[in-house]
């Protein structure tokens, strides 16, 4: 074990490349394989989400990485080195491991829990203690209040955070997470997901993340591997691609009939081409306004204040005189922010039963107009004319898999 590569060095890695190479897993006495010929590559620093219905082998696939389960065939390489070349316990100490039920040791304090792997690797007490405090801060827990507590004294969310801190203890280049936020209520799950994404922005680990929830997969994943029953890889793609071009009927059904809306959740308003809008100030000459109207996508002038913030849409009567009359206008609401997620912005439009809304930047000045048409155009541009239709996909699916 001591001679195995990487012993005592693992904490210096930043992130590792991970490759599944033709991996399969058959359990004796079972007709269907748990994993069948799985090949995929995860680049260093990426979150790869394994997603699929229960029994699709996603957890099995994850557990093959740290040899909690041994494959029947194929190989898994971490930074080009086969996991089979390292002893299971040595390998596991250099791979972060976080599971749904957290599995904190109930008889050990938070600090002892987090210090488990550092202790196994023979770190000295001072270094462990320093690292524990550092990690607690990283997962937004107050070290002085938390380090000496027992798991039973923590809330579910706090336990989950400690679980993540424990997995990161020796700064492993690779992190395995099995539904880490699965047992948390929706509000806290959302918070933990956001926190983890923020954390990942700092630490940039390679992460294998298992979930059955496609929304979580889309939110967390840089790339998503959709598995179907029998451990077959149905599709491995970036979230947007998965939603736009589901590889087959199974993936299409799995991502859900609202996949267009899900795609909107991946984009922010600033990412798409907005309509240009004629912005007008009170007292401006109407001829000037008419000239602006000719050059813009929308032919309704938007009244703004001195700083450019939207005040309201001007009616035809406002332009009837020589100068713009600011009183003849309708409310500018809803106002959308450039940083809003496209889905939320669209929802805002629908809630106000309106076709378009002004978009403002960080300073509150108008940056353009978001309209239903803009959203539709975006969806269309992301899935150009050759997008396959439902019946075509169904035909393809039945040709490929007559039994399913």
């Amino acid at each position, binding site marked *: 074990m001591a001679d195995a590569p990487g012993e005592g060095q693992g904490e210096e890695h930043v992130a590792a490349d991970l490759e599944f190479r033709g991996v399969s897993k058959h359990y004796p006495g079972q007709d269907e394989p748990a994993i069948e010929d799985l090949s995929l590559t995860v680049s260093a620093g990426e979150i790869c989400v394994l997603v699929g219905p229960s029994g699709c082998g996603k957890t099995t696939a994850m557990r093959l990485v740290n040899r*909690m389960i041994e494959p029947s065939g194929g190989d898994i390489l971490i930074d080009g080195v086969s996991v089979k070349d390292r002893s299971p316990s040595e*390998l596991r100490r250099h791979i972060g491991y976080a*599971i749904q039920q957290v*599995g*904190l*040791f*109930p008889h050990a304090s938070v600090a002892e829990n987090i210090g488990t*792997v550092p202790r196994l690797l023979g770190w000295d007490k001072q270094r462990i203690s320093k690292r524990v405090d550092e990690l607690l801060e990283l997962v937004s827990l107050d070290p002085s209040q938390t380090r000496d507590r027992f798991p039973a004294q923590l809330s579910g969310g706090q336990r989950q955070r400690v679980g993540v801190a424990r997995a990161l203890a020796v700064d492993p280049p690779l992190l*395995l997470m099995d539904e880490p936020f699965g047992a948390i209520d929706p509000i806290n799950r959302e918070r933990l997901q956001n926190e983890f994404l923020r954390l990942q922005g700092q630490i940039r680990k390679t992460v294998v993340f298992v979930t059955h929830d496609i929304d979580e997969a889309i939110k967390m994943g840089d790339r998503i591997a959709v598995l179907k029953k029998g451990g077959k890889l149905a599709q491995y793609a970036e979230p947007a691609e998965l939603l736009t071009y589901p590889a087959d009927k199974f993936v299409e059904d799995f991502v859900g009939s609202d996949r267009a809306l899900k795609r909107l959740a991946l984009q922010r308003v600033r990412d798409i081409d907005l309509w240009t809008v004629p912005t007008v100030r009170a007292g401006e000459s109407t001829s000037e306004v008419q000239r602006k109207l000719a050059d813009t996508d929308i032919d309704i002038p938007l009244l703004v204040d001195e700083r450019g913030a939207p005040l309201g849409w001007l009616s035809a009567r406002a332009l009837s005189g020589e100068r713009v009359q600011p009183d003849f206008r309708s409310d500018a609401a809803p106002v959308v922010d450039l940083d809003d997620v496209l889905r939320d912005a669209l929802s805002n439009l629908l809630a106000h039963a309106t076709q378009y809304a002004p978009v403002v930047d960080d300073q509150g000045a108008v940056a353009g107009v978001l309209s239903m048409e803009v959203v539709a155009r975006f969806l269309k541009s992301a899935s150009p004319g050759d997008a396959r239709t439902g019946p075509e996909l169904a035909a393809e699916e039945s040709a490929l898999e007559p039994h399913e």
Partner: protein
Amino acid sequence: MPGPVRSSRPRNRRSSRTSETDVTTPSAQVELRERTGEDCISNNGFCPEWIVENFDRYVDPFFEHIFLTVVSVGIGFAIAFSLALLAHRLRWTFRPISGVTQVLYTVPSIAAFFLLQPYTGRGNLTAIVALVAYTLFILFANIMTGLDNVSRDVKDAGRGMGLTDRQLLWRVELPLALPEILAGLRIATTTTIGLATLAFFAGGGGLGALIEQQLFFKSNVVVAGGLAVLLAAVFDLLILGLQRIAMPWRRVALA
């Protein structure tokens, strides 16, 4: 076992009859005995004066009793613990071990004390062998329950972090099984203290010998029996205390 003890005045059979009466008759005590004591004793009653006077005779058997208990439970624990570790590692050994310890547990205790004598002779050895046999089932069953009750997730997390089987056992599984293990120890100790009162059948001494000698003399039975009960209570509290010290995490969990 002699019958006439019943009606005769209680005596310590270990010392000779004559010397005992001679030694214990200073004038003041004679007077006292005449008023209350003698009556009480001849009625086989509960006589505080007699108890105070004769307490010395209980000291040695009391320590014998502690010796029998501690040695039997100690050896029993060592054996049961080893068996439990074996059954934990090699699951198939669980049933045979459980079966054998269970059979040992069902042998009537008095029978065991007599059955063993041809092989182990009269004395402590026989008593201890029999008492050890009785502790095995309780201890083995409790240690196994404790190990089995450790949450799968905790074990999975431990293995997933790279603990070896041995590290998992000593750092995670056994500490978490401690409540059940100590509960087993408490039951085994209390049971052994009770059973050890029969150890005199095997010539093992202990408080039981005194009880049997003067079975109908209330003072004697109360003191000897009381000491056994006291012993059980003290051991129980000791193990409870140990439990609290060893498991701070359980206190907070319940708080």
